[in-house]
């Protein structure tokens, strides 16, 4: 699944007579790299193991037998070695294995270029069948970029613990990197959080080229957000998209996109054409195809890293949700949050949401009050089934049940001043279908989608 190759081993060494000036700047570069590493090591005690690995790498490289004999060649060799280390570090930082995401297929291609330009990706298991999908590109190249990458990668892992909001994660990573990396070091990143139960993707795009969502057409998942690690207030905008069966999500770094020419409408059109023309290719073949497109003449330069992380929704999202709550009115909000959240993502408008919320609240309140008689040991079971044209909610209690036909119409003048007894009326008014089971302890309510048949308010 993962394929990381490191082309280009060592740069040519025959150019021994490099100009003095170039040499000096190279020497400065190397010494500042060393300082950088030392500084980062101090600041990030948590990164110690990563750095140790890097040190070992450096020692091994130092004892290499091909020791050059003059100063030029020595520096050149050091530079090459650092690049080598950077690439090793980069390869090592990419995931060795990816978590299994039920219903999702995944394909990754990450090629570390000659310049080791700081691409990396990650798939992070967040629990609750949610996954963080990260693709990023560190500014600059070489060893320093690789070190920043290591810091960033760890930061993403650290701050995604118990966190399902990509904005919350990115805000924390940004703050941490602003504190710990030198100015002028930053990264472009796209972070999505996939809720694989509901096939909903929440995402923030921090200046990465927008990922491509391939359905019949190609949509770009863009959003506001500045580079990570540079600004105190990067203004990350979190967006949500509901994924459908057959959707493909393709995340590409600059290096991979540059084959298609300079950024702009022409490039987008070229990419879209390749994707739609190969809609039926397997996911892995599609990734391969993208990497083998003949590079745009006069623009594309070899040597950049290129990374493609691709996902496909290979199974219909689970449409049935079951939730049991204690007979405590405060629990209603959990049910509401789940159901209204899913309906909103599906495209239900304000009126439909109001209607469903009201009916749901009445049904659960009845179940707690009249069904379970506020007995905390009894539960209320809510089942939610979402189809393209309708949402079906069943609310069942553990009580004796009742006969809904015996409930008087509360609209009658004699009942108008009664405090209760309106729940069922409201459920019937706001939902399109309401029915009880024979025992009378489970009500099933149907709300048509706003784009389906109109009947109840908000329908």
């Amino acid at each position, binding site marked *: 699944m993962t394929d990381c190759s490191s082309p280009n081993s060592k740069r040519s060494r025959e150019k021994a007579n490099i100009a003095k000036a170039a040499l000096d700047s190279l020497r400065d570069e190397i010494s500042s790299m060393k300082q950088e590493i030392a500084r980062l090591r101090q600041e990030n005690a948590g990164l110690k193991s990563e750095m140790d690995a890097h040190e070992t790498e450096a020692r091994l490289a130092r004892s290499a037998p091909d020791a050059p004999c003059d100063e030029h060649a020595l520096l050149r060799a050091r530079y090459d070695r650092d690049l080598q280390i950077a690439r090793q570090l980069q390869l090592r930082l990419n995931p060795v294995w990816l978590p299994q995401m039920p219903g999702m297929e995944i394909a990754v291609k990450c090629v570390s270029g000659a310049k080791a330009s700081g691409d990396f990706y990650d798939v992070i298991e967040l629990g609750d069948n949610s996954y963080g999908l990260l693709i990023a590109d560190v500014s600059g190249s070489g060893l320093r970029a690789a070190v920043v990458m290591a810091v960033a990668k760890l930061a993403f892992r650290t701050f995604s613990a118990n966190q399902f909001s990509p904005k919350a994660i990115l805000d924390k990573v940004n703050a941490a990197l602003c504190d710990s990396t030198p100015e002028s070091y930053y990264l472009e990143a796209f972070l999505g959080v996939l809720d694989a139960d509901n096939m909903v993707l929440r995402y923030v795009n921090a200046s990465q080229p927008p990922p491509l969502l391939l359905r019949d057409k190609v949509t770009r998942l863009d959003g506001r957000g500045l580079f990570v690690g540079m600004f105190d207030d990067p203004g990350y905008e979190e967006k949500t998209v509901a994924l459908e069966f057959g959707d493909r999500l393709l995340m590409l770094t600059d290096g991979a996109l540059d084959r298609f020419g300079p950024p702009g409408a022409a490039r987008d059109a070229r990419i879209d054409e390749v994707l739609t023309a190969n809609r039926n290719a397997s996911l892995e073949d599609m990734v391969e195809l993208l990497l083998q497109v003949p590079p745009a003449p006069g623009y594309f330069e070899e040597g950049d890293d290129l990374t493609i992380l691709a996902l496909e929704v290979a199974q219909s999202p689970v449409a049935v949700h079951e939730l049991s709550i204690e007979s405590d009115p405060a629990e209603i909000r959990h049910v509401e949050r789940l159901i209204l959240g899913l309906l909103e993502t599906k495209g239900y408008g304000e009126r439909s949401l109001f209607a469903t919320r009201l009916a749901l609240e009445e049904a659960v309140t009845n179940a707690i009050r009249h069904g379970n008689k506020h007995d905390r040991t009894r539960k209320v079971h809510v089942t939610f089934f979402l189809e393209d044209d309708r949402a079906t909610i069943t609310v069942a209690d553990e009580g004796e049940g009742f006969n809904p036909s015996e409930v008087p119409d509360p609209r009658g003048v004699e009942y*108008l001043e009664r405090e209760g007894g*309106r729940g069922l009326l*409201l459920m019937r008014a706001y939902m399109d279908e309401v029915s009880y089971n024979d025992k009378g302890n489970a009500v099933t309510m149907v709300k048509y989608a706003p784009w389906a048949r109109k009947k109840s308010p908000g329908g």
Partner: protein
Amino acid sequence: MVENYKTIEAQEKDGVTIMRFKDTKVLDELSIRDVGLEMLDVVARALGAKFIIDLAGVEFLSSAVLGKLIKVHQRVVARQGRICLCGVRQSIMEVFQITNLDKLFEFHESVEAAMSEMV
């Protein structure tokens, strides 16, 4: 009136007591119960017998809240007082219409409109 209430605000103006919900999405049963108790307390302590419940900004309202409003209504009527609701948005007005409670309550568009009627 300087009582400090948890869930509502109450002020008296020209002999009319105006009440508002602090939480415009009155939700869980505990706060609904408090809203009910506190409104009744306001009614009990008020010097006058004219009341306005300002529902402007209220985005959601379940039958449990309707029950509390009815109770307050009864209490005011028992004192030969007068009570009206104002600032009710369309989506909430529908709830009153469906339950026929638009016949029970007196409605005005805004507090100002209600004041000019009642004072």
